[in-house]
């Protein structure tokens, strides 16, 4: 089955990012395809490169990056949600004099069109943190 995921809540304060991650692991293990993970609302904070949790805790951001590099899952951060909250894509940051390394490895910044495309393309669309 083709599954797309939407994450609406920030990491650490909400369970959404954890539950979604575990769900994705289980789905991939069961042979399903995870078409895309779309980060919306405060969910964009899952892509904060400079998140530095204590060493004995799970690193949610790194965990997402690894999901992309190891399993090839498409991680997309909504551009308007991200800009509103101060997470700028490199080219935009350069243009406005913002921080250019804000977005962690493996994430790409794009518009809502990509959310809608994955909703249409997938058999199931699951929202975490609604």
């Amino acid at each position: 089955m083709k599954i797309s995921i939407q994450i609406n809540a920030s990491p650490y304060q909400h369970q959404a990012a954890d539950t979604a991650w575990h769900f994705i692991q289980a789905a991939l293990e069961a042979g399903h395809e995870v078409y895309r993970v779309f980060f919306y609302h405060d969910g964009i904070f899952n892509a904060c490169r400079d998140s530095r949790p204590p060493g004995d805790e799970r690193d949610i951001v790194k965990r997402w990056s690894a999901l992309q590099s190891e399993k090839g899952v498409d991680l997309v951060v909504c551009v308007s949600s991200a800009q509103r909250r101060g997470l700028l894509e490199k080219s935009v940051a350069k243009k406005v004099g913002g921080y250019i390394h804000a977005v962690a490895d493996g994430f790409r910044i794009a518009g809502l069109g990509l959310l809608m495309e994955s909703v249409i393309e997938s058999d199931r669309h699951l929202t975490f943190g609604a």
Partner: protein
Amino acid sequence: MNLIGTLPLVLDVKTLFFIINKGLQGNVCGQEFLDIILMAAAFDQKVVVLFEGDGVNALLKNQQPECLNLKNMMPVLDTLPVYDINDVIVEKESMEVYGLTENELAIKAAVVSRSDIKKRLRSADHLFGF
């Protein structure tokens, strides 16, 4: 934002239910949720917008969120027909809870009972909330 490159030539049409069950002010999620609704319509999907619970208050006439330095969402709701979103429904029971009558609603919406909404929800391919 390589939208064109990733889109298939022919898109499926799905029935997408968007459930607004809280006010559109107070945080930015309501506003961002409306963006998804408009995007779904721009992708020619069959869009149904449902107001229920606290969300029915979003339809009340003569709101002045500007007093609180908040964005007025009424112009966006007024835009729905322009996007061919004409299937807007309000839950009758929720209106009764808040003592709202049909002529207090700022936009054209069908007042539908909870049991009929339940039946309609079965026709949805995806449900969205925020």
